[in-house]
């Protein structure tokens, strides 16, 4: 009763895509054009038209996804079809080229299309892999709850540091004020912060703990425990951000390149007709 988008409707769109691919390959093998196979034969034009229409339809997902009142299928069905027909496009467009490439607008359009499809394949992989990891990493907690716990630890750290010396208090303040989550794209993707204020604070506290008078050993130890706990939670939050980034990043390639592809495709078609 409930299935992932790849399995949608018993692989209906996988079947459709396979059918299209088989038909295209059969036609390509069977077809004996005068001269080398290319986009200019009747089969070349047919494959090209199918490919161009597919590209327009595949890009329409961006619109359908935002048409929240639409009753034209479900977004899940559209995604399923988008994935399988997008993969079929790779075969159809390749056959359309007749394996003739050069340094021209036509090959640029093809290259952009391949880049879009490859980024899409990564997207499917990310969508299958990271949701599960993310759930596991969160341990049944919402990100907000995690951040709440971190804020709570900050408060406890400040309380614990009250009886300790100024240097430690400065370190704790540094940890609670300068610790950052997220940040630049690379920082998000890397999943950790090399200059994490909390890690630095922990190091400073541990160092100064070496020459702490025995009377203050207990609160210092408590502080170390708290900062360690905070580091652990920060690591988990960063992991969460990292997984989310893995799931989002490819769209920043996939979508702009799709538009570039659209432009190149228009140039390709227009130039084809001008230089008939």
């Amino acid at each position, binding site marked *: 009763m409930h299935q992932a988008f790849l399995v949608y409707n018993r692989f209906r769109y996988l079947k459709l895509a396979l059918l299209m691919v088989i038909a295209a390959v059969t036609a390509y093998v069977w077809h004996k054009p005068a001269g080398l196979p290319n986009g200019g034969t009747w089969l070349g034009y047919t494959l090209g038209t199918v490919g161009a229409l597919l590209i327009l339809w595949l890009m329409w997902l961006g619109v359908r996804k935002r048409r929240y009142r639409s009753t034209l299928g*479900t977004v899940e069905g559209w995604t399923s079809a988008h994935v399988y027909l997008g993969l079929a496009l790779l075969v159809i467009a390749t056959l359309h080229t007749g394996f003739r490439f050069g340094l021209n607008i036509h090959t640029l359009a093809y290259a952009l299309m391949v880049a879009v499809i490859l980024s899409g394949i990564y997207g499917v992989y990310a969508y299958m892999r990271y949701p599960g990891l993310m759930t596991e990493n969160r341990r049944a907690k919402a990100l907000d709850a995690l951040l709440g716990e971190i804020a709570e630890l900050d408060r406890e750290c400040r309380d614990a540091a009250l009886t300790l010396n100024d240097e430690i208090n400065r370190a704790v303040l540094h940890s609670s004020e300068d610790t950052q989550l997220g940040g630049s794209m690379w920082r998000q993707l890397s999943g950790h912060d090399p200059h994490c204020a909390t890690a630095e604070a922990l190091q400073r506290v541990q160092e100064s703990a070496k020459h702490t008078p025995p009377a203050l050993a207990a609160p210092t130890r408590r502080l170390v425990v708290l900062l360690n706990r905070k580091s652990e939670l920060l690591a988990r939050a960063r992991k969460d951000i990292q997984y989310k980034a893995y799931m989002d990043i490819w769209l920043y390639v996939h979508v702009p390149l799709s538009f570039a592809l659209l432009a190149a495709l228009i140039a390709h078609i227009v130039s084809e007709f001008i230089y008939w």
Partner: protein
Amino acid sequence: MAEQYKIAIVGSGPAGLSAAAHAAELGVSHVLLEASEQISNTIFRYQKGKFVMAEPSVLPLRAPLEFTAANRETVLELWNKGIKFHNVGIRYQAEVTGIEARTDGFDLRLKNGETVQAEAVVLGIGLQGNIRKLGVSGEDLPQVQYQLDDPREYDGETIIVVGAGDAGIENAVALAEQNTVIIINRKDEFDRVKEGNLNLILQHIKDGKIECYYSTQVGRMEATPDAEKPMVAVLNTANGEAHVPCDRLIARLGAIPPRRFVEACSIEFPNNDPAAVPSVSATYESNVKGLYIVGALAGYPLIKQALNQGYEVVEFILGHDLEPADEPLLREKFKNLKQRPSVTEALAMIQGNCPLLAGITTLQLREFMLDSEVRTPREGETIFAIDDYTDTFYTILDGEVQVQVHRDDHRQRITLRRGQFFGEMSLISGRRRSATVLAGPGCVLIETPRRSMTKLIKSAEPVKRVIDEVFLLRAVQSQLAPNTPVEHLTELVKSARVERFAAGAVLFQEGDDADCLQLVRSGSLTAARTLGGREVVLSYIPAGNYVGEMALLGESKRNATVRAAVATETIRLDGEAFKTLLERDATLREQVEAKYQQRLAQNVRMEDSPETGNVISFLVQQGLGEASDVLLIDEALCVRCNNCESACAETHDGTSRLNREAGPTYASVHVPTSCRHCEHPHCMKDCPPDAIHRAGNGEVYIADNCIGCGNCQRNCPYGVIQMAAKPDSKPGLLAWLLFGAGPGPGQAKKQQGKKADGGALQKHAVKCDMCRDLPGGPSCVRACPTGAAIRVSPEDFMSFTNLAG
């Protein structure tokens, strides 16, 4: 010598004010006695700027006071002007402590010892009751207060909060921001509070932000003019007396329901239900002659109704004949009847034809009919179909209907005739229709909405009894033995009795002797067995099913422990009577045996995969046992794109009714904060304009006549109802994409809404309506790109939980 009046009016709410103003207008000697320092204390205590609605809009206003939908301040100002204009004789701080009937009138004793005499008394004290005070010496010291308007008003004070309910906790937590707060709890734990508040207060106590005295009561309050703090609270703690100096004490102890006072005036209530109100005649007279009841206490919670009744009751007391305000509305209802009767004739006909409604008062019947519709369906027309989710109740005024109990066999029909009723099954169980009903020849029906029927059942004992009896027979017949002739069932039905179980209560334990069969009437159950020291949930049993046949058939002990998943009502059928029936009825025996085999097989499967059982117990813990349709998210598929929330906001005036991320998760099953469309919706419990309904597909929705009172939001235990104003409209997709005009699809937008006079936004309750206005079904599910968001009804729990495996 006591003051003497023709009419004494107790309580200056809308009903009392209107009565007093009309009496003043007519020059009748009257007095309006108000316990507090201002008129309409309940409305006065609304939060500042709250918008007051004027429902029901169809009802014309016939009061001498003006009233239109406006904010609290405007409404109160209109009324204050009105009582000045009419020169109403109002006495403030005149709390009535007792009303005694004499031969020619009444003595009203006031709290200050005075007595007022009147020929007739109009009681309009509402249902809010008087605020419960500390009940110890010093309870009226100036720094002891029973309400908190704005917690930010106080800074740096030591404040004691008394009362461990939701109000006390919310006040204490809000005050703790800027003050030293001590909370006093009479018990040793916080029970009967919302889970959110419980966590909040325990966290604050743990963090040392609030000090809590458990098992403690306030002994007395003493003013200490010379000390640093103005007073000292003497507390009786478990370890003896404690003296706590403080600046302020805020007691949130709830209100004393007015019932005891009303009963002390010799007014009778129909039953012990806490929601019951006294019954009154068509002229609002109670069982005590000369003592009239109007407004919420008479069962009319809406302001406009109360204002009208105030006017009418004075007319009635003066002996005038008055066409009730609802007369034209009722006339309209009966216009389709062939006989074209007058309203009085039609009402008499109803009581003559329908034994169920014969015993109720004319006023109750008018109210009942005002909410109901008279239907004259053509012969053969479907009134409702099996599995529909409607919950209205039908009384057959004339003609007959055909009931198809069997899903597949359309020829087997039961005929119900004039005076009988149907639709009670869905009303009681809160579940889908269990049969299809078709109109027969000459069919005239009264269709009554759920709330009006529930109200009638609560206030009229005979109606409840008749419905319960019929329900028992029909439930046994349809859910247990559909093919057995009625006469075979008599003995079993005679043994039947309704049992109630609180959530978590045990119906029977594994290993118990089997002596009964339990048919679930409302709520749901889980069956579990202990395996290797751990409890494994074997099955989930929604309303309309039975349990306990296994041990009866096998003549053995119970092989599982059955618990109520939520508050549940069952019909207990005697084991011996059931066995006798099985001996007489071979077909039934076969059916029950088949179900038995099916359960055995399922139990083996479940014991094999305990994780599935764990998911079921997780879902039950989340209150899904009372859900009829719930949104779940498979976190192994959810890519956290929030398209579900965006879709919800975009299709619902910009406010998402679901919060994807909030809510608990178990294994990969996430229960987001979103409406579950409960079988017996908590939100429906107390909706003054009756704006919350259940539609044909099961969705519980809030109609446009919502007055924004927030009762449903408070009553919902799952926090899925919000109060929201309408935001501004958004630009189209292309305008946003190409020209960057305004917020784009799914992006946050400012809520502006219409401004009411005082600047407060006119907010309405909003919640999931399962996109009932969209042809394709819930947009959250249709907008999910990966198939992670799904909607599940309890019947599907078992198959859904394979997710965990």
